[in-house]
């Protein structure tokens, strides 16, 4: 579904991604972790071309991102993305947030878009908040709406960029529950997250990045199985985040 092939990216002289290659198969859940500044968010943003890269290619469901002729808006409309800071549109009601792209990008009728949006809102347990504005919801609720907004576009794959990092601890689980449910339904997912519990529960593979490189890329069982078999950098990282 996603094929990342030798992606290199520079900010000026500084190389943020070096020869990153990996595959995400249909229905697979891949967790990307690593220390801050390791390039994991940048990598995931390359997948829907929010960040340009200078070398290599990423092919999403048969469409090459490096290809100059690719219709990027069309590609992006098929790739759902959930952001660390939710990025709901604060001036629109929850219903409008769920329907605006369906109507303006996919050309659905307002009735169809609303029906779809409200069904998804019910699925994330927020049906009664449809008329409110994002500013009236808690962080966890906003993030669930953001997931519903992405799903409303019928994406072939979902990208999560640290979806729980900006949340109060109490609200992390309500978001993870939605993500687990989604994973169990067979959605193809690429998640940048530090939630190792989530990774253990639903990930098929775990990718560990450091200094712009993919250091580890292995099945979950292998990744969490024998920590001593991991690279030194991954061991350090895991020791720090699994300690408590």
């Amino acid at each position, binding site marked *: 579904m996603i094929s990342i092939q030798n992606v290199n990216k520079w900010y000026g002289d500084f190389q943020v991604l070096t020869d990153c290659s990996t595959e995400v198969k249909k229905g697979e859940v891949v967790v990307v972790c690593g220390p801050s500044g390791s390039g994991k968010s940048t990598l995931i*943003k390359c997948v*829907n071309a*929010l960040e340009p890269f200078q070398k290599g290619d990423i092919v999403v469901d048969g469409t090459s991102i490096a290809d100059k002729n690719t219709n990027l*808006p*069309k590609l*992006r*409309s*098929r*790739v*759902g*993305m959930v*952001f*660390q*800071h939710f*990025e*709901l*549109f*604060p*001036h629109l009601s929850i219903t409008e947030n769920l329907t*605006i*792209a369906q109507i*303006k*990008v*996919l050309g659905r009728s307002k009735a169809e878009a609303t029906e779809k949006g409200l069904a998804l809102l019910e699925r994330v347990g927020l049906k009664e908040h449809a008329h*409110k*504005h*994002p*500013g*009236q*919801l808690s962080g966890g609720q906003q993030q669930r709406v953001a997931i519903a*907004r*992405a799903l409303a*576009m019928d994406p072939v794959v979902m990208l999560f960029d640290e979806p729980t990092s900006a949340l109060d601890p109490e609200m992390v689980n309500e978001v993870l529950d939605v993500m687990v449910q989604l994973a169990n339904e067979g959605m193809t997912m690429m998640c940048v997250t530090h939630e190792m519990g989530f990774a253990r529960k639903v990930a098929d593979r775990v990718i560990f990045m450091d200094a712009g490189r993919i250091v580890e890329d292995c099945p979950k069982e292998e990744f969490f199985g024998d920590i001593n078999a991991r690279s030194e950098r991954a061991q350090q990282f895991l020791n720090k985040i699994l300690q408590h």
Partner: protein
Amino acid sequence: MNYNWDWGVFFKSTGIGSEIYLDWFVTGLGWTIAIALTGWLIALALGSLLGVMRTVPNRWISGIATCYVEVFRNVPLLVQLFLWYFLVPDLLPEPLEMWFKQDLSPATSAFISVVVCLGLFTAARVCEQVRTGIQALPKGQLAAGYALGFRLPQIYRDVLLPQAFRIIIPPLTSEFLNIFKNSSVASLIGLMELLAQTKQTAEFSANLFEAFTLATLIYFTLNMSLMLLMRLVEKKVAVPGLISVGGK
């Protein structure tokens, strides 16, 4: 000070037709409002366009808007007015120049000059406010728009501008009031707006203090009402749970 106060002067005949002095103030106020509103339409439309241009990821487009702002913001308003009224018409193609100088009534040609001048001058200031409004939004809003498959113009129209305009209503209000105050420069090219009528009343009646007191009150009341109106607009478009309004 030996001064003959007479607050009844406004109801006295001007000696021209059946007009009383108050009629002059009413006509003047009419011109002031016409200048300010027409100029504001130009300023808001052009300023918004330029403000957007300054934020788009294209050096040439943003560069053009930056040059515009620097030129129009760094030349005094009066100088600009004289340029538009005295010099620019001479640079027009012959037929247009003749039309402007001969076919139009003096009031109309002065009106056009001052409206263009104020509109373009204020546009530079509106541009900067629109730019700051857009730049004050989280970067993620643009990313979220892209991620949903929007194209850049759609993101501006549906995501960025509706939020940016809400943020800048207070400074935009002051700019709106400024254009009413700045409209008084029109008196210097012979357009009989409020200030010109005031001066004329003062000269004709010799009741200088009364004339300027009334003009001051009219400007003050006008701008106060506009400010209150804008505050209502701000409340009306406020987003629930987002931006606090009027200190609440």
